[in-house]
């Protein structure tokens, strides 16, 4: 097994996620992109775990999943509040605050 391939793959997934957060307008899609980034980190953690033969990376992956779940709770609460007031989840329309 060549670990580099997995690291490169996780890098690609991470980049897709990062680009998604920066470019997509819908808050929910932006948020899903963040989740993609977290999962890319999980892949890198597990790859590292395999390379070094330690359990730390696998444990980290579980922690990250739990944190991601907590983040979903908070994130959706905020997005739904915004949606109820504005009837839109677009991050571009949330622009009362500038400069």
């Amino acid at each position, binding site marked *: 097994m060549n670990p580099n391939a997995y690291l490169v793959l996780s890098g690609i997934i991470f980049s897709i996620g990062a680009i998604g957060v920066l470019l997509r307008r819908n*808050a929910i899609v932006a948020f899903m992109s*963040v989740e993609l980034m977290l999962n890319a980190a999980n892949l890198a953690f597990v790859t590292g775990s395999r390379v070094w033969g330690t359990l730390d990376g696998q444990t980290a992956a579980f922690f990250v999943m739990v944190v991601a779940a907590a983040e979903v709770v908070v994130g959706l609460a905020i997005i739904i509040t915004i949606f109820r007031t504005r009837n839109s989840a677009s991050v571009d329309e949330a622009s009362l605050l500038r400069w």
Partner: protein
Amino acid sequence: MIQTVLNTIPTPSFEYALLSPILVMFLAACLGVLVEAFLPHEKRRFAHLIIVFTAILFAFFAVVLQSGPNGRALVANGTVALDGPGWILQGTILLVAALSALLFAESKIDPLGDAFAARASTLPGGEEEKIATKLGWAQTEIWPLFSFAISGMLLFVTANDLLVLFVALEVMSLPLYLLAGLARRRRLLSQEAALKYFILGALASAILLFGSALTYAYTGSLEFGQISNGISSANNSPGLLTAAIALVAVGMLFKVGAVPFHQWVPDVYTGSPTPVTSFMAGAVKVAAFGGLLRVFYVAFGALVWDWRPLIWVVAGLTMVVGSVIALAQSDFKRMLAYSSVSNGGFILVGFSATSRPAIAAVLIYLIAYAFATVGAFALLTLIREQAGESSTLIRWKGLGKKSPLVAGLMSLFMLSFAGIPLTSGFTAKFGVFTAAISGGATALVLVGVIASAIAAVFYIRVIILMFFSEPIPEGPFVVVPSIFTTIAITASAVVTIILGLFPQVVIDLISSASVFLR
């Protein structure tokens, strides 16, 4: 088979006494959740106040009693480092958070109640909101959220492991995203602030996490000390290491609001309820810089020559951009937000010199800045109009004639931000600049001096507006607060003056303790 596996996993050691500040705050948060579940809502506020303030008091005494030379150790299997800076940061966070808690508790200023929405779930401006306000309901969930955020911060500044750092960061940030969106007045702005804070905060956490994952893949460990060893011994694929450090740096700099990752700061600070803003600008700032210090000095300390130029550039940009944009602000809250950005730059100046006095200088700067900023935001809550806080600067004309006390105290904090001698700001700026010069960053200090001259302009402008202009008709009025806000303002003012007049006491105390354990 199972037996051999079990033998290779050591039984975790867990030093409950040394970790008690974190545990007490965490327990308080859990108790707060139970209060929400079981007490009728008219009794909740009182119960929360008791729990939160008792917990902060206990945690603070636990910090003071244990922070001596005997209490410095790597605990919880080496994942938490309770060293001099760790204890100092924990103590500072608890004190500053206590002042913010006093502002959270204030309910006399606004005739409608405290600074938070009566029911966060109601539509802004809708019928339900009016009913909830009329019934005097309160969103008491802010208290457990607040306690969770503090326990996260206490863990964040002492985390000695990238995974613990990440979890602590989330425990600290998630409640803040919610708190940002709970303002009673101008709720649309507040909700928008929460959304922006959440999306950008989650992005920053994800970047930090991916950096941690790459660091682990490179060094084979998550623990700072072993990462440092791993970096020194490994000599292959420096590209992976560079990417790892860059990503961790971006994630952390995002959290401290350094340029070019500062865009969220003004929006979030302006939109959030002012007590929450004071919490973010005070305690959260201390925590974020504390974490940054530890990661870069301990984990990536071997590579100081590689990351130092990066920090120099970021520090210079942060000071200049923050100060220049603050010049153009017409809103006081937004001006303080940019001031927070530019102060972050000054802290990074001290950060760039990795000597022991530099660590002390950064810690002193954090203390001085945190107290002054909480004081300034506390005063802002007193200056009001019918529709809520009056934060448009131009309307503050002649405030010094209406209320010399409020305007005078505000001037004190402005002078401290500007770094005028005899205030804490001078002690702080002098410290970081001296440390940076001895660390060889003279050019950066020159930029810093110019930036602080620019910054002085907008701080002094506030004073001139308040004292040397005629009051405008229908201008803002000053409200007399309850004991909560009074204590918060008095304490901030006292710290600002003491740190300015007798800095040596604090400097000696902190210098003697500014060594990181690894």
